[in-house]
Structure formats: structure tokens, C-alpha cells
């Protein structure tokens, strides 16, 4: 197995591990929210907003993991600069922006959520730039393939 194939395999395994961890977090979150309520020094109860925020973000998170898995699958097949991957990168960036908006709403209750908002928006922005690069790469590849 070449170093490149090994790297793709490791990425694929990491995505699957993240999928398992996220699934576990779905079940653990109500208990974690209760624990947070007990240890929180703030007086207000944010259990319900916290759970709504978490489960909304989890939906986007699962879409991200599913799309990442498909993207890595395409890379494994050697199909890197194809229009389908541009679509996947677009979905990934939209999901990051959705998470940013959801956590921005939650930041009304806990200001620290702004960190997640900022991180998600920033990653979404980076993904958009990568998507734009892929678009140009697909165009160049097509031009190269049709140069006789």
C-alpha cells in the first residue's frame, strides 16, 4: 500500500470513528446537559436551548461526516477533480455556515458559544475557497483532457 493510499485509509477510518463518537454523543448529550446544569455557576437554566442547539448542529454534523466519507471514497478511486466533489465541498461549507448560525443564536445564552460560531464560519469560508480552487482545477483538467 502506497503512502498516499495509507493516508486516505487513515482519513476514512478517522471519519468512521468520528461517526461513532457523534452517535454516542447523541445519547450522552441529555446527561451531559444535566451535568452542565449542576456544575454551572450561572443561575439560568439553558438545558433546553443547549439540547436544541446540540441536536441541530448534530444533524449538520452527520451530513458533514457522510459527505466527507463520499469525498474520501472518490479520492480513493482517483476521482479528485470532478464536479461531484465540488458539490460535496459546497455542501460542507453550507453545513459549517448553518452550524455558525445555530451557535450564534445560542451565544445569546452563553457568550462562549461565539468561539464555535467563529470557528465554524472560518472553516466554512476556507472550504468555499477550496471549492473555488476545485472548480478551476476541474476546468483546467477538462481543457487538458480535450487538448489534442
Amino acid at each position, binding site marked *: 500500500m502506497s503512502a498516499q493510499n495509507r493516508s486516505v485509509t487513515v482519513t476514512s477510518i478517522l471519519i468512521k470513528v468520528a461517526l461513532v463518537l457523534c452517535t454516542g454523543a447523541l445519547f450522552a448529550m441529555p446527561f451531559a446537559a444535566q451535568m452542565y446544569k449542576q456544575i454551572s455557576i450561572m443561575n439560568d437554566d439553558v438545558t433546553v436551548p443547549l439540547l436544541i442547539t446540540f441536536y441541530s448542529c448534530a444533524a449538520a454534523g452527520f451530513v458533514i461526516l457522510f459527505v466527507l466519507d463520499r469525498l474520501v471514497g472518490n479520492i480513493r478511486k482517483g476521482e479528485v477533480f470532478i464536479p461531484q466533489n465540488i458539490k460535496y465541498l459546497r455542501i460542507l461549507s453550507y453545513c459549517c455556515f448553518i452550524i455558525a448560525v445555530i451557535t450564534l443564536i445560542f451565544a445569546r445564552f452563553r457568550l462562549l458559544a461565539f468561539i464555535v460560531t467563529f470557528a465554524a464560519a472560518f472553516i466554512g469560508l476556507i472550504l468555499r475557497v477550496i471549492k473555488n480552487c476545485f472548480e478551476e482545477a476541474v476546468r483546467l483538467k*477538462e*481543457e487538458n483532457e*480535450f*487538448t*489534442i
Partner: protein
Amino acid sequence: MKIIVNLDVVMAKRKIGSGELAEKIGITQANLSVLKTGKAKAIRFSTLEKLCDALDCQPGDILEFSRDD
């Protein structure tokens, strides 16, 4: 505006088949077909040179500019 490839016309005039021409200029029949059907995005000078040499013609015989308004 577009460039029209008249390769099939020149080939017919010279009575040369795709297989023979592809072999003469050293490209695959699939690539020659891409060129003939006008799907090609660009043509290398080296390919054009070989085509002109094999078909004994000028680049202008193979390529034509059309201003479709």
C-alpha cells in the same frame, strides 16, 4: 464565434481513414475522433504540424473561423 474543424472534409478529399491517419500522426483514434467532432478545446502546434504533413494541407484547410452572430 467559434473555430470549426474541417478535418473530416480534408480526410475525405485525401481518401484517408481515421485509423490510418491516427497511426500516421501518432495519436489514438479516440483523440482523433474528439478532434473531428469538434469537442476538442485546443490543438497543439505539434499535432497540427503532423496533421498538415500527413494530409499535405495548410492549417487553414483544417481549421475555419466562424462568426455566428
